[in-house]
């Protein structure tokens, strides 16, 4: 055994720990987590090749999209800022800055759950170390700066400053300084909102209410768009949002974006510009202070977990029960689940209980249907061709529903051990999970179908309905087969409806998400040539003839998958233990 050297005595009054030591230690921690994440041990053999192929595909699809997402807003900001100054529309600059801030905050709020899931460590865990609050505040301000919304927002503001400088060189320096402070203001606003949201989202009920509000917000935007934007002809659409921004007029000058714009534009009146700049600084300090108040509560040990509402229950008196003879109990048939075997019935009941206790998931099931209602009421969508509207709407409903098929064991976490240990067939468990998913999909698709048939302006031809039904069977069966295979090969632990997911846990991992998109879009794309050929050849039943055999083949593939599920799960036990059962 190794002998530890005698510890130096920690005296009562120790010299303070230099701030640089602790800040550098945290920076080093982040760096090591990043490096270790990059070079993490990867699977070998066939899984390595499959992972490599999927990884390359993922990057090929995601990187250009990311580049567009980053370059687009940045270029537009620079151009609009240049236009606002060169064409003498100072109000437009305030609107532009407000737009950047709104987009920044909207993306940040919506990305909160994703950011929490992607977090490799929880910065709040730093409170256990001997940090002073000031250092904790600095660390919490700095950690997490590399989020997409912050990067794109900062780049957009930099581009705006460059645009202003190009339009009027004398404004370049003030624009850079003001944009830097405006960026800081936005960062603290994001932090403030994030910290308070974290507090509120710790409560399950509030999470559900928040999900509902966000869904309502999205629906309201669509609904307002529907009400206020009648189709006037191709390319002639008035943007009510831009109108609102334009009509907001002088109110903008009382917002930080107005302070920032005025601080740049009034540079020839130094006192007025300084006053506006101070206004911007004051709002930055205000947001930082509100953020600090929240952080201080955390620092002092605020409880941020699910609310505990346990009540101390008096121990119940032992119930006198007639003893059941053991031989009788063993020989009695297990509780019947009606048409299902007891195992399937028990698993179905468990899935149902989890679903009904998860309001966020229920809202997620309902939201696509509301959109279908809105789209069906919009002539622009439903009247252009009923032939295309039904399959498009069904495909839209399926996008969200099908992704859950790709990680069916994720929500079980360590509970999956029970399935592996119990004297049951894993096939029954898979079947129960798929049946529950299938029931939800059938309900959603059925409701969407009914909504379209009732609300659409033109009746949907029977041939299109049959073709769409067969296409739906094909897509669902194919996704069930691939999703079940993927669920066994690459399970990922997650907690349904919870913001803070365990160790990179997500309902669907990146590769699975790519698979869902690839399969679904592939299937949707398959519809396009079939629909065109059907119109061109004047053969309305062509779709049914093509999708019918495909549906049968997909169902057959799913049946084959189910047959091999038992064997595959047995072979993947170590993967289950690795991904689902570890802390």
């Amino acid at each position, binding site marked *: 055994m190794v002998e*530890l050297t*005698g510890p130096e005595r920690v005296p009562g009054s120790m010299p303070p*720990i230099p701030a640089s030591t602790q800040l550098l230690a945290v920076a080093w921690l982040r760096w090591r*987590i990043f490096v270790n994440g990059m070079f993490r041990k990867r699977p070998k053999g066939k899984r390595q090749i499959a992972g490599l192929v999927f990884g390359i595909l993922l990057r090929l699809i995601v990187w250009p999209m990311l580049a567009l997402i980053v370059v687009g807003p940045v270029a537009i900001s620079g151009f609009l800022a240049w236009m606002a100054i060169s064409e003498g529309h100072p109000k437009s600059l305030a609107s532009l800055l407000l737009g950047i801030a709104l987009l920044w905050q909207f993306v940040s709020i919506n990305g909160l759950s994703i950011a929490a899931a992607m977090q490799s460590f929880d910065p709040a865990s730093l409170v256990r170390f001997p940090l002073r609050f000031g250092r904790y505040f600095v660390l919490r301000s700095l950690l997490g700066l590399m989020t997409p919304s912050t990067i794109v927002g900062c780049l957009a503001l930099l581009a705006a400053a460059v645009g202003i400088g190009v339009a009027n060189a004398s404004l370049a320096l003030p624009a850079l300084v003001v944009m830097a402070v405006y960026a800081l203001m936005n960062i603290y606003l994001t932090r403030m909102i994030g910290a308070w949201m974290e507090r509120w989202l710790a409560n399950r009920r509030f999470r559900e209410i928040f999900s509902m509000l966000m869904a309502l917000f999205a629906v309201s935007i669509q609904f307002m768009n529907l009400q206020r934007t009648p189709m006037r002809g191709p390319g002639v659409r008035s943007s009510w949002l831009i109108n609102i921004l334009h009509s907001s007029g002088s109110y903008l000058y009382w917002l930080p974006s107005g302070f920032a714009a005025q601080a740049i534009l009034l540079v020839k009146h130094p006192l007025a510009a300084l006053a506006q700049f101070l206004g911007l600084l004051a709002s930055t300090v205000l947001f930082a202070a509100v953020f600090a108040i929240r952080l201080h509560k955390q620092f002092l040990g605020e409880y941020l977990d699910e609310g505990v509402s346990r009540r101390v229950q008096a121990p119940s008196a032992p119930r006198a029960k007639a003893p059941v003879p053991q031989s009788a109990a063993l020989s009695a048939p297990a509780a019947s689940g009606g048409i299902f075997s007891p195992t399937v019935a028990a698993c179905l009941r468990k899935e149902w209980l989890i679903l009904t206790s998860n309001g966020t998931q229920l809202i997620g099931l309902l939201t696509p249907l509301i959109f279908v209602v809105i789209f069906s009421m919009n002539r622009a969508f439903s009247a252009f061709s009923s032939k295309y509207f039904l399959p498009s709407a069904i495909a839209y409903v399926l996008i969200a529903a099908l992704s859950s098929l790709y990680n069916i064991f994720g929500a079980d976490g360590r509970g999956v051990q029970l399935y592996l240990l119990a004297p049951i067939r894993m096939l029954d468990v898979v079947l129960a999970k798929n049946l529950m998913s299938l029931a939800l999909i059938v309900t959603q698709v059925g409701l969407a179908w009914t909504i379209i048939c009732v609300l659409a302006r033109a009746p949907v031809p029977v041939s299109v309905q049959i073709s769409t039904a067969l296409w739906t069977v094909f897509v669902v069966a194919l996704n069930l087969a691939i999703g079940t295979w993927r669920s066994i090969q690459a399970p990922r632990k997650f907690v349904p409806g919870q913001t803070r997911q365990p160790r990179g846990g997500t309902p669907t991992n990146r590769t699975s998400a790519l698979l869902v998109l690839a399969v679904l879009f592939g299937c949707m794309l398959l519809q396009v040539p079939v629909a065109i050929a059907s119109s061109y050849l004047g053969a309305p039943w062509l779709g049914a003839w093509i999708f019918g055999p495909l549906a049968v083949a997909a169902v057959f593939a799913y049946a084959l998958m189910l047959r091999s599920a038992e064997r595959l799960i047995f072979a993947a036990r170590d993967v289950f233990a690795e991904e689902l059962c570890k802390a």
Partner: protein
Amino acid sequence: MRCFSSEVPAKNLRYKPERTRTGQVLIQDARFLRSRGRSVYRGCKQETMTTPAIDTTALTRRFGDFTAVDNVNLRVDAGQFFGFLGPNGAGKSTTIKMLTGLLAPTSGSIRVLGGDLRANSADIKRQIGVVPEGMALFGRLTADEYLQFVGRMYGLDRATTLNRTRELLEFMQLAGEQKKLITDFSHGMQKKLALAAAVIHGPKVLFLDEPFEGVDAVAAGTLKAMLLRMIARGATIFLTSHVLEIVERLCTHITIIHRGQLVAQGSLDELRAGAGRIGQAGIQEAAAPPGLEKGSLEQIFLEIVGTDREGNPAATASEQELSWLS
């Protein structure tokens, strides 16, 4: 007092101590110490009575309408190996979280090493070590990286951090696992690492929440020896464990919490004599249940937590008949 600043001088001990290869005193068994006197160290008694390592007054924590810790007054003297026991959900982990500054109390005050925890949290955290319930390790670091990070956060200089990291990894038999990420460690290895991180800065008070859970017998022996050595050097250890045999063997003082309230406090002898029981009038000394040694901590524990506030035996699962079990 010297006995808190460094290794306990052998002449101050009331028994013949075992010495390590380097000549350091090794205290193996607190029960052995207790059998030879009330205090482990001569000359320490007066100071331990005046400056408690942990002192709480009316400590209370509520979660909504549930009171997890109810009006707890704790006093842990410096140098004590303090066992904090209770059934599941009794409030042990909540108490530890409050004592280490991870959870704010709803009411009441906490003083650690003489300082108010709320007012001096950074200074106090610097002098305590914690192995929390969930271990709170950064899974994407290696053990070596984690210990280096912790050392730097506690203000150790680079050379000391590296030396102690190496020593601790060897001591905990983790030196061969340096390339593995912590997330790939077994539960027992994570426990050992968490303990190494808790002691790297030489804390004066060590809080251990179930430190032996999932740790193999060999490692548990090593850890116990290390903890006893820390006690010998003047540290205070606050331990919760469901393994009562370990508590009985290690701890000089024991407190039992039940439904958020302290129900017993004192040395094992005091608990045996029924002197340390709080708010439980007239408990009759019961015969030891089958298989339990009379006067053992387990028997005392079951006597205490198996009764309600008036001392009446509560209904226990053992009384219920599970006739279908073979």
